[in-house]
């Protein structure tokens, strides 16, 4: 079964090619079948591979498949080859599985759109590139996938290109991630020139052998790769693009900006964990950035009024948790959160998409209300997702994954109490904003009625139900160690990711520490109930205060970047628009014309002036002769 690995990315790419070439000629039904079907088939294959991998793991816990040699220049050989190990298996299952559900949802959600075919073309292309990214056996191929998903993100954010804002948001996403991509490619250059290869496994071995821990090269390489990861995963300081990326359709937000593309950074760091272990300072930076980001984004999410922007900031925050997990050495915990986050975040976005469409393209949650009575199915699934997001204990997958990270943050030798406190605060805020969303949009009086003619078909509800179920039970693959010994995911990923070292002798010990996250999360939920369910009226004033506006605007990052970069760049462009380098050329032309103007004065046609000039010449001539 493993030899069918190439089909996993090949099927979506085939779907893309088919739709790109023939999409116009096919009827809508055919487009839906091809678009969703390619990903569906890939999901089937991926699940088969997963099963096969678990049942009969290949030697060395890795399976490689070489397709062809891309190029071989000056001693560097790059092949189009896939490398399948537990980490990759985890990712392809999510990408194809959740991806298929989202495609299915889109066949109905996007049915009224003129760009139906275009949509599925781009989505298939995206899935293909994302799979390429996670399956790549060398960093260059990974970078191809990296850039490809960036391209598809641009295409899909700006899907409704006729409105200027969508194009702007797409460009913003592309440019900001580009900054990270540049850092990453410099990192690749560093790696290839220092270590001579880009294949990930040999690269990691050579790095471990050649570079001592903490050496400058290791730090540089890790930091550069981290830069790339920050851009793609929308962490501080490159997070400004994700809220604006909500301009794209909801399935796009679900797939790209929740489940998969933004987790590419997480994947990269996990993949090159050896490098980060060689540069502990950079690993610590990963944790610190993750912590700062989760707090920043959580607070920002608290003040958003657009339902999708709440979820966008929430994504930034949750990916921050993943980075925090990776940074404190809880590698598999971070991946576990990715796994569960894909379920409940995609669910939340899809449900939000239904809500928006039902409310006739209304995004403001304060114009919604009481939707649990109008859209009950959506409500229950949304509730499941929000509960998982807030990490409601036991019954949600979020609880198992996120609380594991928080726990590890304290317990790991690479973690710290400070980070743990930040993570706890983040848990409270997460619960707060998640249920703020639930209470404001789904509870209370119905402020605006949803469109009565709005029908929700099975193709929308089925993915919602499936994802809701997964949000509840999907965490059962890795239970807390002090409950049972069922840590399947941890063991599954063990060959790839190092175990989190345990700390002993911390002053914060005891069984009660593991219950702190639960406490904070429930406190957040309770606070949300208090503020948004019981005392509604006061909320309106707080939400318009200056502080609220500041947080809603993402703490002013956009404004800061505008003044720090855009304004000087514009000024520079204006100043340079005079085309200085062309000055010598234009100067010659100007000189010629000026001397023409000057000399033509002497051509006045008057005999007397000509004679005068002759006289002048004679005077000069005599002068020269006489003075000699």
């Amino acid at each position, binding site marked *: 079964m493993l030899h069918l690995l190439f089909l996993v990315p090949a099927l979506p790419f085939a779907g893309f090619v088919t739709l790109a070439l023939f999409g116009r000629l096919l009827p809508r039904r055919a487009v839906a079948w091809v678009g969703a079907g390619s990903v569906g088939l890939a999901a089937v294959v991926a699940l088969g591979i997963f099963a096969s991998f678990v049942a009969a793991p290949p030697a060395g816990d890795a399976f490689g498949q070489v397709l062809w040699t891309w190029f071989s220049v000056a001693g560097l050989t790059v092949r189009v080859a896939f490398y399948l190990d537990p980490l990759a298996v985890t990712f392809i299952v999510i990408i194809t599985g959740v991806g298929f559900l989202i495609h299915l949802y889109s066949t109905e959600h996007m049915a009224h759109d003129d760009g139906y075919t275009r949509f599925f073309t781009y989505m298939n292309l995206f899935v293909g590139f994302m799979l390429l990214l996670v399956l790549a056996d060398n960093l260059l191929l990974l970078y191809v996938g990296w850039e490809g998903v960036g391209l598809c993100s641009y295409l899909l954010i700006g899907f409704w290109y006729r409105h200027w804002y969508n194009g702007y948001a797409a460009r913003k996403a592309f440019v900001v991630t580009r900054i990270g991509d540049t850092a990453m490619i410099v990192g690749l250059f560093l790696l290839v020139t220092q270590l001579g290869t880009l294949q990930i496994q040999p690269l990691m071995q050579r790095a471990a052998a050649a570079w001592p821990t903490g050496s400058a090269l290791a730090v540089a390489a890790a930091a550069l790769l981290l830069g790339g990861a920050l851009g793609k995963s929308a962490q501080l300081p490159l997070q400004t693009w994700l809220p604006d990326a909500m301009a794209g359709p909801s399935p796009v937000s679900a797939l790209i900006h929740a489940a998969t593309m933004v987790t590419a950074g997480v994947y990269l760091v996990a993949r090159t964990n050896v490098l980060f272990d060689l540069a502990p300072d950079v690993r610590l930076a990963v944790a610190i950035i993750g912590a700062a980001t989760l707090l920043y984004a959580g607070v920002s999410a608290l003040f958003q009024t657009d339902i999708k922007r709440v979820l966008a900031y929430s994504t930034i925050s949750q990916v921050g948790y993943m980075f925090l997990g990776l940074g404190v050495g809880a590698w598999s915990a971070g991946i576990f959160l990715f796994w569960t986050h894909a379920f409940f975040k995609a669910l939340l976005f899809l449900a939000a998409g239904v809500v928006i469409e039902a409310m006739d393209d209304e995004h403001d949650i304060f114009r919604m209300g009481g939707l649990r009575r109008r859209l009950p199915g959506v409500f229950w699934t949304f509730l499941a997702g929000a509960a998982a997001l807030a990490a409601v204990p036991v019954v949600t997958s979020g609880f198992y994954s996120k609380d594991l990270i928080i726990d590890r943050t304290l317990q790991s030798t690479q973690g710290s109490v400070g980070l743990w406190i930040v993570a706890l605060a983040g848990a409270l805020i997460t619960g707060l904003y998640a249920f703020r969303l639930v209470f404001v949009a789904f509870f209370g009086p119905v402020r605006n009625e949803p469109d009565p003619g709005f029908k929700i078909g099975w193709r929308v509800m089925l993915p919602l139900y499936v994802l809701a179920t997964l949000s509840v039970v999907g965490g059962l693959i890795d239970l807390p160690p002090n409950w049972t010994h069922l840590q399947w995911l941890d063991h599954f990923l063990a060959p790839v990711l190092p175990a989190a070292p345990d700390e002993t002798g911390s002053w914060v010990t005891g069984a009660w520490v593991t219950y702190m996250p639960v406490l904070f999360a429930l406190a957040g939920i309770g606070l949300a109930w208090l503020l948004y369910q019981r005392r509604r009226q006061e909320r309106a004033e707080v939400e318009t205060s200056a502080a609220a506006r500041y947080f809603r605007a993402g703490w002013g990052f956009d404004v800061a970047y505008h003044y720090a970069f855009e304004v000087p760049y514009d000024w520079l462009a204006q100043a340079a628009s005079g085309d200085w380098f062309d000055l010598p050329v234009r100067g010659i032309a100007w000189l010629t014309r000026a001397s023409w103007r000057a000399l033509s004065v002497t051509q006045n046609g008057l005999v007397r002036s000509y004679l*005068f000039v002759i*006289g*002048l010449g*004679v*005077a000069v001539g*005599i*002068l020269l*002769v*006489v003075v000699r």
Partner: protein
Amino acid sequence: MTATFYVAAAVAVVSTLLVITRTRALHALLFLVVSLTAVAVVFYTLGAPFVAALEIIIYAGAIIVLFVFTVMLLNIDTASERGERARVRPAWGAGPTALALVLLVELAWAIGSGGPHVGARVVGPREVGVALYGPYAIGVELASTLLLVALIGARHLGQRARQTGLAPGEVELPVDLAPGSLAPEGQGELVAMTAGAHTDQGAGPPPDHEPSLAETGADERAERGES
């Protein structure tokens, strides 16, 4: 003799200055005659009586007379006075005067000072004649050829226009000449005027009885006067 030289030199310079500053052409020409006579006297003091005589006879006596005839026949005298008074500003002479002073300084420096005295030996006509018919015979022939050429050229240029077409050297100027170059009453018409075609145009075109230049040439016989 030396005193004669200085006096004659002074007269020459003064009268030449007056030549270029007169408004009426005839006055200028008469002063020119004075200047040339003074220069003839200078020649005499330099011991060159032959050229002194030639100066008077040919230069003052023929060339200037030619000028005078032209002035009289074309009625330039009063017209020039009007024109020059209207157009010439004294300040315009500043530039050329400055140039002339510069050149004067240069020439003075080139000439130097303290040269030998000249005029001791009088070189009479006999010597000049001997030299003319001796080494400079060819020069004489060339000079006469030159005069012949000038004669033919002047006669040709002064010729009246034929029945049709233009006189030699005449050009047909288009109507869009700069204002002022058209005859005052000739606006809108071709400036090329065939003699005899316009009789009542006023001051612009020359009078009908304009003589051909052939009659004014020094060595020529009266030619036919066309009408």
